[in-house]
């Protein structure tokens, strides 16, 4: 299977052994984890195993695997042509030397990592894709896609508006209509009212499950660690959606029992913080690990891998494909990514989350060279502080060399917000 996909076996083994070690140290060593996490541990152990086998089996049955790098690519539409949707964002400092042969050095880690995985031939997901979908979000991704495109068999770009205007919405709708056509051509299947409704239903159920999880986290003591919750939000992007939904709901049943009994993973007297900012793709667990080893627990993520990716539900009513695509447009147009200008709803939602989840402070996380989030971080900090919400701005990348400095800041921030 691996050689069919063109994977570099030696490099791939090195990556997996690094991942396995990190997973053991960061996740499996946590105390008092919910039983329901076993499913996600299994998924992680098979992330480059059974799941790839499933993708290959799906392909053998004539289904298409569609990869994407952004929450603006509607999974509903992919499911409507019986496709399999996989997230391709990468979170490891791997293959950066190779990436830097085609990209400038001062590029964000997320983009470099995606290139590193592709050029190093270590990502079976990208190799399994029939179509890879890019999107015009930030300048970094937009221009990097020009370089990525010739490396892939079938690369397609969705244009995105930059302002939340009527014209912007019309552009997004038009792009989604074009994307339907692209998917139909690639799969040889028609999007029908019935197939699209089914796609919407499956995707909404998945969102409702992670929303349910997000809501349970308001409890104190925290019934689940921020690391485990982040992991679930990461798995959201590449697991089978129906099985994922079922597993999250089962976990939530268990967590609700925990809350009733007052059982938690951390002491009740632990500082509660929210992370807001850039997405954290697997296996980027750096900041959460530092936070949760500094007398604090993360109770929510305002991120694409988190609430920004999942908090809106697509309206399922409609008797034509056009109406349903319009519903999808309405849903996705809400996403308050920092590439939009202005983008006031994002910080408003962080305030709302802080209140709802009984958080004591916000850690704003930016990837170095991610200008949209870095630029937003200063006004966001000022506004949150004005609203009485202590905020810490962090800017970092995928390397581990600044872990000491970050830990100092995080510990000092915890001392600031949480006076025992």
């Amino acid at each position: 299977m691996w050689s069919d996909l063109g994977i570099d076996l030696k490099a791939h083994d090195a990556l997996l052994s690094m991942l396995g070690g990190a997973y053991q140290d960061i996740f499996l060593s946590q105390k008092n984890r919910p039983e329901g996490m076993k499913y996600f541990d299994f998924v992680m152990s098979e992330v480059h195993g059974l799941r790839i086998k499933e993708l290959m089996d799906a392909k053998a049955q004539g289904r298409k695997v569609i990869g994407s790098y952004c929450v603006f690519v509607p999974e509903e539409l992919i499911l409507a042509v019986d496709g399999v949707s996989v997230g391709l964002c990468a979170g490891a400092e791997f293959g950066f030397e190779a990436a830097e042969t085609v990209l400038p050095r001062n590029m964000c880690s997320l983009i470099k990592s995606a290139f590193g995985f592709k050029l190093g031939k270590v990502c079976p997901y990208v190799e399994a894709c029939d179509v890879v979908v890019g999107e015009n979000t930030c300048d970094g991704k937009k221009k990097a896609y020009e370089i990525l495109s010739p490396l892939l068999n079938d690369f397609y770009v969705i244009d995105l508006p930059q302002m939340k205007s009527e014209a912007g919405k019309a552009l997004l709708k038009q792009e989604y209509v074009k994307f339907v056509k692209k998917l139909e051509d690639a799969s040889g299947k028609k999007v029908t009212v019935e197939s699209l409704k089914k796609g919407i239903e499956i995707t909404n159920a998945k969102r409702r499950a992670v929303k349910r999880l997000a809501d349970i986290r308001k409890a104190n003591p925290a019934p689940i660690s921020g690391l485990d919750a982040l992991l679930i939000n990461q798995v959201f992007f590449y697991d089978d959606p129906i099985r994922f939904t079922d597993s999250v709901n089962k976990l939530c049943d268990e967590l609700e029992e925990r809350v009733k009994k007052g059982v938690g993973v951390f002491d009740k007297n632990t500082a509660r913080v929210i992370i807001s900012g850039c997405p954290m793709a697997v296996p980027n667990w750096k900041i959460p690990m530092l936070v949760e080893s500094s007398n604090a627990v993360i109770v929510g993520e305002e991120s694409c891998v988190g609430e920004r990716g999942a908090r809106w539900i697509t309206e399922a009513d409609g008797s034509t494909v056009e109406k349903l695509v319009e519903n999808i447009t309405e849903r996705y147009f809400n996403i308050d990514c920092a590439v939009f200008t202005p983008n006031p709803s994002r910080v408003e939602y962080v305030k709302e989350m802080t209140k709802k989840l009984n958080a004591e402070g916000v850690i704003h996380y930016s990837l170095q060279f991610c200008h949209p989030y870095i630029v937003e971080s200063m006004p966001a900090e000022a506004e949150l502080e004005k609203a009485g919400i202590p905020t810490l701005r962090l800017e970092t990348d995928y390397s581990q060399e600044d872990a000491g400095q970050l830990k100092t800041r995080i510990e000092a921030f915890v001392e600031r917000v949480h006076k025992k």
Partner: protein
Amino acid sequence: MRSAGIDIGSRTVKLAVLEDGELVLARKALSSHNPLEAAALLMRDIDLGTVVATGYGRHLIKANLNCAVISEIKAFALGARWLSADCRAILDIGGQDTKAISLDEKGNMSKFEMNDKCAAGTGRFLEIMAAALGYTLEEFSKAALSAKRAEKINSTCTVFAESEVISLTHQGGVREEVALGIHKAIVSRSVSILRRVAPPGSIFFAGGVALNECVRVHLAAEMVREVIVPEDPQIVGALGAALYASTKKGDEKSHRVIMKD
């Protein structure tokens, strides 16, 4: 009752011992490649009482002494307030970090800023620039103060600034003027961090770089504020940790480091 604070910085290890509210002992040593040993030597054969560790190596000490830790930001806040009862703004420039801390009226930390991961504009930066110009640290500050004008140094990145310095000296730039340019670069970097958090009023300046007169003078001029430098600016973090240790009620565990030869 005794209590002690040990501050393991990137360049220097500091120990402060308090007895009944008085500072009875302050010691310093270079961190070296083995900061744990450096700390053990400092703490050797002294009755320390309760120990609290701070600084970069705090978790290393914690693992060995099983003592409590606080961040150096909190330690500086506590130490500064003890030395200067009404201070609200603290600047600490250490070996590899620059920190600006603001306090509320009661002395609680209300905000802080810190430089990013590189040692741009910190003590290490000054050391390397002094070496690039062939000065000792003492000569470096004096030479800069003697200059009538400054060469413009654009970077506080140690690597880039070193090449700027080399390029200036190779163009026949006056050594003292380059030295002043470097001092001004470090001041301007600190001022931008300070301005983001510091409430009005005097600035309490601590850390090894506070020993540098040229930085002190230009900091006061740039901020147009009084700059207060304690008698021993390097001990503030260790002192803060010792103060924190003295408030740890119910923890009567006493530490005494006995070294085997």
